[in-house]
């Protein structure tokens, strides 16, 4: 019995540190949309780190640090779950914003080590917005369950991007 106990402890120890290490295969997704509005108008909405209300699932944005590097925000989603994020780099001239998730439950979004970039490219009266994400799947070891595997993580993020970009288009085009 003593041997069994030791083996169990060893197994637990393995799980506890492996749970911190992400999987070895980072995933990426990207989606884009064309909006019938000038780039400045689009950037005024997506370039504001402290207001993520253009993402349909977001109910409330609270943060500090404005649009400076290392600024933080907490997104409260409809239903009450939260996502904590940190601004990595915001370039108003290039109209790019990159940030990362510092805390999220895999039940809310099945990802680990998620980072993201939003790019706004103007072409006169039209604007192309691209939202790119890089992340590891929700389950951080071999043999992930179906809801936390690579495909599930990509599907969840892509779903978020599609809904967000479509809502952004509607919002900006209506307001123009």
């Amino acid at each position, binding site marked *: 019995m003593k041997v069994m106990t030791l083996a169990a402890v060893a197994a637990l120890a393995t799980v506890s540190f492996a749970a911190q290490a992400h999987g070895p295969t*980072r995933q990426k997704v990207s989606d884009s949309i064309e909006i019938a509005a000038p780039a400045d108008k689009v950037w005024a909405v997506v370039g504001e780190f402290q207001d993520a209300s253009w993402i349909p699932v977001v109910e409330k944005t609270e943060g500090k640090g404005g649009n400076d590097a290392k600024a933080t925000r907490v997104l409260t989603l409809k239903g009450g779950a939260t996502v904590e994020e940190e601004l990595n780099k915001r370039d108003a001239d290039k109209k790019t914003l990159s940030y990362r998730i510092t805390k999220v439950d895999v039940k809310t979004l099945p990802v680990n080590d998620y980072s993201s970039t939003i790019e706004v490219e103007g072409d006169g009266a039209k604007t192309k917005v691209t939202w790119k994400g890089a992340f590891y799947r929700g389950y951080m070891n071999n043999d992930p369950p179906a809801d936390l595997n690579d495909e599930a993580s990509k599907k969840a993020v892509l779903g978020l991007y599609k809904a967000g970009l479509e809502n952004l288009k509607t919002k900006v085009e209506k307001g123009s």
Partner: protein
Amino acid sequence: MSRPRLVAACLVALIATAPAALAAQAVVTVQGANAVEIVDLDGGAVVATIPVAGSPAGVALSPDRATAYVTRPDGPGLAVIDLATRRVIGLVPLPGGPLGIAVDPVSGAVYVADWYAARVFVLVPRDGTLAPDGEIAVGASPSGLAVTPDGATLLVANREDDSVSIVALATRRETARVKVGHHPFGLTLDATGARAYTANVTGNDVSVIDVAAAREVGRAATGERPYVVALAGGRGFVTDQYGNTVTVFDLATLKTLKTIDVGDHPEGIAATRDGRRLYVANWGDNTLSVIDAGTLAVTGEIKMSDGPRAFGDFLR
């Protein structure tokens, strides 16, 4: 084709087949594409795409630079690639999460880190492939590995243990564990094996280790999420995954000299043997950036398939 151009083309062909051409190829794991790509560095283009299933990530070359060993974390296992015929000549299954890989430059033994555990697998060349030959206990989530030029010592960055294991290869035992910064990932030795450099992913710095003394002797600041360090001309070059930059620092003073903009999510980086250029694998943009080690300018970009990582010794 006019005659002078034909002559020039023949000259290029002659040069390309000379032994010196060995220094002018990159062997790049393209993880999303499930392949390994051979890049002609003088021509600046991919010349072969070799399918390798299992999300290839780590790469190392045999001492004669004729064979590439590639880890396949989703295999899991590794692939042995003959670089002359550009074919996979062996698939070796391994347990766990094989990721980091290094070759003993003297014996040709191959060391593979198990990301999910706290061990390094030992494999030895046999009958044109690799045969498992035991394992070495190290710290948690071993990542980058390197063997000293004399083949006596293996160094292992233990990502979840914030440490580097120093292993005597004669006895295959860890002789010292050196505390470094937060989450060391890439580990690079200088040409003499005197100093090692780890990129500390969540600490945003590089730890400098005196290998003989088995202690950390300095830190150099980097951009966000440093991944791997390369060395050339008395300078360190560090890929900053989140910064989309390469931080250049002086190896003597450890002061930052320059921050170079490269592609999205730069990962693997290595210097050519003559130390004149560096190549950076941009995972997000599917490119290799070429950096002039003298001027510190980006001089070119090479298109790759999806998800180049090139984690390891990838220049031939």
